């Protein structure tokens, strides 16, 4: 047997929301894939100079679409994992709107196993709420949980029926797994491509008001109250959705919510810049500035406790269709970390410690992961960030197969320079390690 290897990350600013630590004086030791207090005697020590860098515990993006199985020309578990590593992300929760829909224990296991085989990012599969996400019959939530589903969602589609949502939320309490709903009243959004605002009216694009989202958010919040169930609101973007969330908080309902980075950085004026390029087409759509400001405020107040990318890669040919025909979605895994810094930390809206909670303790709580951050004995999942590096988003440099993003060409602040999962580097200086590292410890 070879000598024991130890890694020492020295000189960085350790920001650990799990332990509420923001310190320049903490060295991080990694021994045998875990965070350690000190190396065993005689260990071979590799020292990483982290001066000027931030050291963060595993960053979680709890809303991604890896399109696998079924739509592997858009993304695969492998390319999605590489995109995650490149973006500084150590764990993702994958949405079940695959083809077929991830609504059986076998498919949940397959996604999990495939993720482990690729070995670049921890994958927490989300199972469907209803069979085929058709909204008509509850999926076998108990067995999905047994197979490893960390949450349930029909994302891409709302759980339209109130009766079905009630049943799912009732189950969530029993199973201790959250229901994530994509809130959208489809009778109000039918045919719409964009938010009903100035850009829609100028460009002549079919549009829907943000009320379409808020109406269902209110319904879901009331049902969470009725059932005592566990609700997570995917990608909230409407002002009235935040009011509903505030109501839920006042009544101590078990409701959490996430915001997507594109809603933090852009408003619907982006459509006037991009015109009919469907990179701006996303659901929920880019909202007016007043909604964006309300969302930023809700993050600052702690009302919204997660930032998640809603990483939705599409093929260029699909995104090149006429705007109204092109699919919804933005490829977001490789910009989320920088977007969070640029939107929240750099302008001083939130402290680094509070902001990083949105991608650590926030999603950890929603998914029920119970990790302890960079505490001794925990798996060595961490990200090193250069917090001041300015860079211009160039989708051609993405590892994701999806190059669709309206952040293209934008200057962002801060970039991941290294990602570690289970004590192994999955990315260093922008270079992603080859897939097939074998099992993550």
């Amino acid at each position: 047997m070879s000598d024991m290897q130890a890694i020492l990350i020295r000189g960085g600013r350790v920001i650990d929301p799990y332990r509420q630590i923001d310190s320049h004086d903490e060295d991080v030791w990694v021994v045998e894939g875990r965070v350690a207090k000190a190396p065993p005697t005689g260990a071979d020590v590799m020292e990483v100079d982290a001066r000027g860098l931030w050291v963060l515990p595993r960053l979680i993006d709890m809303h991604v679409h890896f399109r696998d199985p079924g739509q592997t020309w858009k993304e695969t578990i492998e390319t999605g994992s590489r995109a995650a590593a490149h973006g500084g992300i150590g764990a993702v929760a994958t949405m079940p709107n695959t083809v077929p829909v991830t609504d059986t224990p076998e498919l949940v296991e397959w996604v999990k196993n495939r993720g482990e085989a690729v070995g670049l990012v921890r994958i927490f599969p989300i199972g469907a709420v209803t069979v085929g996400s058709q909204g008509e019959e509850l999926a076998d939530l108990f067995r999905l949980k047994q197979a490893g589903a960390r949450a349930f969602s029909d994302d891409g589609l709302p759980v339209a029926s109130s009766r079905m949502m009630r049943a799912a939320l009732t189950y969530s309490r029993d199973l201790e797994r959250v229901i994530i709903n994509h809130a959208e009243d489809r009778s109000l959004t039918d045919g719409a491509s964009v938010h009903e605002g100035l850009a829609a009216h100028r460009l002549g694009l079919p549009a829907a008001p943000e009320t379409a989202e808020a109406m269902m958010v209110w319904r879901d919040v009331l049902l969470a109250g009725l059932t005592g169930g566990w609700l997570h609101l995917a990608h909230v973007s409407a002002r009235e959705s935040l009011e509903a969330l505030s109501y839920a908080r006042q009544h101590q309902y078990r409701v959490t919510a996430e915001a997507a980075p594109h809603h933090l950085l852009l408003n619907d004026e982006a459509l006037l810049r991009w015109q009919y390029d469907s990179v701006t087409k996303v659901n929920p759509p880019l909202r007016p500035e007043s909604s964006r400001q309300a969302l930023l405020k809700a993050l600052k107040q702690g009302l919204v406790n997660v930032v998640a990318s809603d990483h939705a890669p599409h093929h260029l040919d699909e995104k090149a269709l006429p705007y109204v025909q092109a699919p919804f979605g933005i490829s977001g895994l490789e910009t989320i970390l920088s977007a969070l810094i640029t939107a929240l930390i750099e302008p001083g809206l939130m402290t680094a410690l509070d902001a990083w909670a949105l991608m650590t303790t926030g999603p950890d709580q929603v998914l029920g992961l119970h990790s302890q951050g960079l505490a001794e004995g925990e798996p060595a999942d961490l990200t090193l960030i250069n917090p001041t590096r300015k860079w211009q988003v160039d989708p051609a440099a993405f590892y994701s197969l999806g190059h669709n993003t309206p952040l293209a060409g934008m200057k962002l602040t801060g970039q991941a320079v290294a990602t570690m999962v289970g004590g192994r580097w999955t990315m260093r200086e922008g270079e992603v390690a080859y897939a097939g590292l074998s099992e993550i410890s």
Partner: protein
Amino acid sequence: MPSAWRKKESAINNLLGLEGVDRLFLESLLEEAAGMKRDIVGKSRKKSTALKGRAFVNLFFEPSTRTRTSFELAGKYLGADVVNVQGKGSSVEKGETVYDTALNIQAMQVDGLVVRHPASGVPAQLQAYLDIPVINGGDGFHEHPTQGLLDLFTVWEARQSLRDCHLVIVGDILHSRVARSDLWGFLAMGAHVTLVAPAIWLPTEIRETGLEMTSNLDNVLAAADVVQVLRIQKERRSMRGMPSVEEYRARWGITEERAQRLKQDALILHPGPQNRGVEIDSAVMAQKASKIWDQVENGVAVRMAVLRQLMGGSHE
């Protein structure tokens, strides 16, 4: 940004919409259209060699009578060769994308493309792929710039000036590409515009100097110099929010009774095709104030001017 989407740097002019075009450009088109009408369209033998040796294609993904025919005639009066391609019966039905169709047509060395498509923005998107001028023949709810130009021309011809002219557009404004082109064109020429529609069809987010919106037609009739009556577009989701044809006619239809309340010299326009007895009465169409047939004739002259400006540059 995917390379296909990078805006090409090019000196070629397109006509994608009237939003943002300047007054001088509009005036030059109107002057040229007047010349076309006087010297060619109005003559018994319509002969010009301005576009001799030039060829362009009308690529239409939606039905059209006036626009397609007048583009075709406009091209022929100027000596160009014109080919019509329709979505139906073309390779589009075999699954070809609109971009590939357009690229194939360009590869046949044509000098321009007129595009009509039911989706807003398609001409603008195509323009990024092509090296030849693209003329928007109407896209979704967005714009119909040559319709806007022929409306401008018709009013300009009748009144000699557009400055301070008060245009009232009545109909489904929200889903109307004609309304948008008229709006930007008339505002650019110094006119005032009032949009009149059932409240759910008003694009309330657009705010411009000289622009007003209301649902009450009767309040604005007496102050109108021009009334543009839009067709009720039943095929375009626009019936949503509209209770009945009878109510529409009662509140927003240009009936004989309403036409009588207009100024003596007010003009009535309609881009066609008309739903007689709904948005406009037959008796009103027959009145002297109605310029519907002038619009159609002027459509040819205006399109000649556009074609000449975009494709009439020096050869070789």
